[in-house]
C-alpha cells in the first residue's frame, strides 16, 4: 500500500506515516510560544550603588533619592546659567532678549508617574510639585531658549503626531465649479451635505427648499451659522440629504456636515477658529435611557411619606 513494505515496517516508518497522515502544527516554528523579554516584565531596578569599599557612587546617595535630587540640582544649575546670560546681556545694554521665547503650547509637564519611571525612585507629590515649580520658574526666564533641550525632556506632547486630521482636497465637477462633501450626525439624524463654490446662497434639503423644509426659525439659523461664521453667507450653494431624527436633530446634523465640508475651502486659521467656536465638534448629547424603579431618565415615582 502506498509503496510501503509491510514486512519491514520499522518504528521510524510508523512515525513518518503518522506525520504524513495526521500533520500537526504543534511542532511548527510559528506555533512556539512567544515570551516577552525580561526587561519588559520586571520593573527597572537600580544597579549597585556602592563600590567594593562601601563608598556610594552617587554624591547625593544619603538623601535616599539621589536621581531625583540630582535632577533638581541640575535644573537649578540651568536656571543660574540663563540668569547669568541675562545679567551679561543687561550689562552690555541689551534689554530685550535677542532670542525667541520657548514654545510649549502643544505640550504638558510630565506626570508624577512618568517622573517615577524616569528616576526609578519614589517621588512624593510634594517633591513632584517642587520640581514643577522650579521648571515653571525656568521657562519664564527670557533666555530659556538656551536650555530648550533640558526643559523638553520634562514635557509631553498633548496630541500624538500621527493623529492629525486630514482635510479632503476640493473636488471639481464638469462645469469646473469646486465642491466639497461632508457628513454629520446629531441625536438620531444623519446628514450628507454638498457645498458648491460660486453660488448664491441656495439651500436644498431632500429636494425641498430651506423655508419649506424647516418651519422653525431656530433650525434655519443653525443651518445658516457655519456660512455666517466664516463670513461667506451668499458665496456657496448647499445641497443635502438628511434622514432620521426630528427637526432640531436634523438641523444640527446638517450644520455639522456643512462645517466639515466648508473646511476644504478655508485657510487653517479659520478652521481653527471654527473648532474653537464648536462648529467641528459632534454634539454628544443623546436621549438618556430610562432606569428601572423610575418613571423616566430622571423622573421618580411619587414619593410617599408613609
Amino acid at each position, binding site marked *: 500500500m502506498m509503496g510501503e513494505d509491510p514486512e519491514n515496517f520499522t518504528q521510524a516508518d510508523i512515525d513518518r506515516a503518522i506525520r504524513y497522515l495526521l500533520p500537526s502544527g504543534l511542532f511548527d516554528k510559528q506555533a512556539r510560544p512567544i515570551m516577552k523579554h525580561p526587561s519588559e516584565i520586571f520593573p527597572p531596578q537600580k544597579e549597585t550603588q*556602592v563600590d567594593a*569599599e*562601601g563608598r*556610594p557612587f552617587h*554624591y*547625593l546617595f*544619603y*538623601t*535616599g533619592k539621589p536621581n531625583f535630587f540630582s535632577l533638581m*540640582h541640575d535644573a537649578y544649575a540651568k536656571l543660574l546659567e540663563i540668569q547669568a546670560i541675562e545679567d551679561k546681556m543687561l550689562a552690555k545694554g541689551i534689554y530685550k532678549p535677542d532670542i525667541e521665547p520657548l514654545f510649549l503650547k502643544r505640550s504638558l509637564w510630565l506626570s508624577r508617574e512618568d517622573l517615577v519611571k524616569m528616576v526609578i525612585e519614589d517621588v512624593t507629590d510634594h517633591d513632584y510639585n517642587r520640581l514643577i515649580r522650579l521648571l515653571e520658574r525656568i521657562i519664564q526666564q527670557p533666555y530659556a531658549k538656551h536650555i530648550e533641550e533640558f526643559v523638553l525632556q520634562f514635557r509631553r506632547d498633548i496630541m500624538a503626531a500621527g493623529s492629525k486630521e486630514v482635510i479632503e482636497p476640493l473636488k471639481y465637477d464638469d462645469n469646473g465649479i469646486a465642491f466639497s462633501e461632508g457628513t454629520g450626525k446629531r441625536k438620531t439624524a444623519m446628514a450628507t451635505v454638498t457645498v458648491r463654490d460660486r453660488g448664491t446662497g441656495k439651500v436644498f434639503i431632500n429636494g425641498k427648499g430651506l423655508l419649506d423644509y424647516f418651519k422653525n426659525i431656530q433650525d434655519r439659523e443653525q443651518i445658516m451659522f457655519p456660512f455666517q461664521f466664516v463670513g461667506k453667507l451668499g458665496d456657496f450653494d448647499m445641497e443635502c440629504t438628511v434622514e432620521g431624527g426630528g427637526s432640531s436633530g436634523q438641523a444640527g446634523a446638517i450644520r455639522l456636515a456643512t462645517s466639515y465640508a466648508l473646511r476644504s475651502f478655508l485657510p487653517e486659521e479659520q478652521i481653527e477658529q471654527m473648532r474653537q467656536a464648536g462648529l467641528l465638534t459632534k454634539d454628544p448629547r443623546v436621549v438618556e435611557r430610562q432606569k428601572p424603579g423610575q418613571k423616566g431618565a430622571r423622573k421618580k415615582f411619587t414619593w410617599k411619606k408613609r
Partner: protein
Amino acid sequence: MKIDDPLHHPDYFNVKDLFTLQDLFNAKVHLGHKLGVLNPHMKKYIFGVRQKMCILDLDQTMEHLQLALNVTAHIAYRKGIIMFVNRSLQFTHLVEKTAHECGEYAHTRYWQGGCFTNALLQYGPETKLPHLVILLNTQTNVFQEHTAVRDSAKMNIPTVGIVDSNCNPNLITYPVPGNDDTPVSMELYCKLFKEAIMRGKQARKEKDDIAKKLADEHKL
C-alpha cells in the same frame, strides 16, 4: 617626603595657611544674630554685643576652624566618607556643588528619619555611614536643631559644625563659631573645607603612588 606618622604631626596638612583672621573678617564671619536669640551655650564664643547684635570672637573661631580643617584633611587622607549637611535653602546648590567637586557627599534635602539610625534597612547591608559630617548650618529651615547633630552623636560619627550665636554647640565634636547666613561666609567655608579635603586626598594619592612604586621595585 614626609616620613613621620601624620597623626603625630600637629598640622600635617598645613591648614593654618588656608586662611587668615583678615579673611574671616572680610567674609563677615564674626556677625552673629540678635541678643534675644543668643543660645546660652554660645556665650563663651561671643566677643561682645553692639546695638543688640552679637559679635563672635574671631580668635576663638580661628582656633576652632583650624582644628576642624585639620580633622577634615586627616579623614580625607584616610579615605573617609565625608558628608556636607545644610538645610538652608539659599545655599543648597553651593553645598551640593562643593561636595560633588571634591568627590564627597552632600545632604541638603529633607532628612529622612532613619538616614543614620535605620541605614541598614533603608540603604541595604553594604553601605557605610559617613566618617565625618560637616554641618554648614546646624539648624533646619524652621530654626530647630538639625537631626543630623543628634543622630551623628548616636552613631559615633564625629561632626564639624558652623555654629551661629543662636545654635547649640553641645553635641558637635568640632564646633566652629561663625556666621552661617551670609553668602560670603558660606562661600569661604565651602572653599576652605574643599581645599582641606583635596589636600588630604592629594597626600593619600602621593603616598599610595610611592608605596606602589616600592612594591613594583621589590617585585623586580
